[in-house]
Each structure stands twice: as C-alpha cells, then as structure tokens.
C-alpha cells in the first residue's frame, strides 16, 4: 500500500476532484518532461554544451549532469504519467523546474544571449527571455498541484489497490 498516497491531507486535500484535475496535470507535465528528455538522451554532448553555456556548474560536473539529468526527467515523467510514486515524481519535477528557473534567472541577469536548451540543442532552440521564465512557472504549477493535492492519484497503484480491495 502506498502510504504516501493514502494519507488524508485535510478537508481541501481530500476532495475527490483533485484526482481528476491531478490526472490532467500529471499527463501534461509528464508529457512535457518525457518530450524534453528525448534530445538530451539522444545527444548528451549537445546537452552538455547547453549546460556549459549557462556558466553555472564547474566543468567537472557538466558531463555528469548531462548524463544523469535526462534520465531523471524520463523516469519522473513516465512515473507521474502511469501513476507510480506520483508525489515523489512531482517533488522531483518541481525541484528540477525550480533548478531550471534559477539557472534561467542567472543567465538572464548576466545577459547571456543563448537558447535555453530545454527541448532542443543550443543551435535549434529559441532565445531565452522573460517569457521562458513564465513558461517554466506554467510548468511548475501543475507539478506543485500534484505534489500537494493529488493524494489519491489515478493510475497503476490505484488500480492495483482497487483490485486488492475488491
């Protein structure tokens, strides 16, 4: 039994509608993350270059980040879509989004003329701007919603639980 998904968070959190709104949020943000990781997994060197362009991480950490981060995006995205470890995945996605937003804010403050490297390589992507930051906020909100309110998520775990109980 997924204890994390059965604890009642209070009256507002126990509303059953959260499951359905949460499902929509999960499909959206999970799709975004799975879509975003594909080019990074396919071409880790291009992603490493994108990370290096931000000029935040030391050289020794760039490759390690370029190798691991896309797989973390993939697993979090897939898990949140199918409904396994949903709130942990939402936590990871929220954490990654906040991390991306901090990197973006630093790049914007420094006036670095670059692509965000979120969905495509440096050459192919659009230039970063304040709109990119708003877009990231738009991605962060559904993840936070799932983390806070989706305590009984629809998905593999809930189906398994229903089968066991029934």
């Amino acid at each position, binding site marked *: 039994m997924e204890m994390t998904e059965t604890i009642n968070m209070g009256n507002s959190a126990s509303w059953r509608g959260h499951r359905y709104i949460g499902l929509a949020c999960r499909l959206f943000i999970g799709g975004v993350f799975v879509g975003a990781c594909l080019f990074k997994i396919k071409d880790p*060197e291009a992603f*490493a270059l994108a990370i290096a362009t931000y000029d935040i991480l030391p*050289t020794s950490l760039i*490759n*390690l980040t370029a190798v691991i981060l896309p797989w973390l995006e993939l*697993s979090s995205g897939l*898990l949140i879509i199918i409904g396994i470890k949903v*709130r*942990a995945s939402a936590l990871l996605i929220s954490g990654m989004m906040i991390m991306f937003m901090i990197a973006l804010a630093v790049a914007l403050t420094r006036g670095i003329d670059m692509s965000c490297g979120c969905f495509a390589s440096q050459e192919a992507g659009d230039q970063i701007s304040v709109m990119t930051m708003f877009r990231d906020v738009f991605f962060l909100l559904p993840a936070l919603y799932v983390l806070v309110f989706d305590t009984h998520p629809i998905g593999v775990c809930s189906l398994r639980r229903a089968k066991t109980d029934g």
Partner: protein
Amino acid sequence: MRGLTKKQGHKHAVILILRDAFIIIAVSAAAACVVNFFRSDSLPWIAARDYEVLVPCPEPMGEATAVDIGDFDGIGIRDLLIDARGRADYDNWHRPDSIHIAFDYLEPLSDEAVGRIALTKAQRIIVAGDGGDPDSGEQLAREIAGKGIKNVYFIVGGMAALKNSGQ
C-alpha cells in the same frame, strides 16, 4: 498507518515521499550510467577541458541610411561625424570635426557613447568607418540606430572615400 495521528501521518508521508524520490534518483542515475557506459558516443564522466561556448556577437539592430560619396552634401554645422575606425587608423589621420567611437564586433556600444552622441543634439549622425566588407561604419551606424537615435547615416567607402572626395 492505522492509529497514527494526523500530524504523525503528515510527517510519515513526507518521509516516504522523500524516500521514494531518493530511490527514483538512484535508479535513474544507475540507468544513465549503464547506458552511457555502453553507448558508442558516451560522454566521459569529467570533461577533459572546458567547453568552447560560442556566444554570438551583438547584432546591430537599427536601420541606417547608406550615403554614396557622390551624393553627399558635406558635413554641416548641425551634423555629427563619427569616425568608427580603429584607434591606430584614427591616430594616424582623422578629420578635426569628427569624434572617435571605434566599432567593436564583440563589445556592444556603451551607454556612455550613446549619451555622448545624444548630448550633441546633432540633426544628422554621419558615421564613416574603414570602408571594408563588412564596413565598420555601417555596423556602428546600425548599432547607434538600434539604440533609438534617429537620422543615422553611413558613408559608403568609409573615411577613405570621404577623405578622397575632399569634402
């Protein structure tokens, strides 16, 4: 689960979420390392040298009008002539009625230089550069125009053309 108070339940849920998140990170990292190890274009764990990050040069943005020296009516009292050539060329020879703002392909035009131009209140800003291809005069003129300054012109052929015309 049963018998836990609400507060204990919350605490327990947070701990389990963190535990699950840690497991996902560990499994993802392991999968990433295995795949990277076996792929033909694998990345070394630590980059051997710094990445060569290409930051594009600042692009001049505004529109400046090209003036052929044959059609040029000369530098008037209300005009400002800007010499966009490098320091060495300027020191070698320059018109006494010009001011020197060298065009730099890497450095954007400074606010101080823009302020200096604006303070002259000139009716026309005429920029003459090295006359090359690309012409530093044209680049600087477009950059000045991009900063919001109106009536910016550049002389085709640059300062050499202006000198040879005797104007």
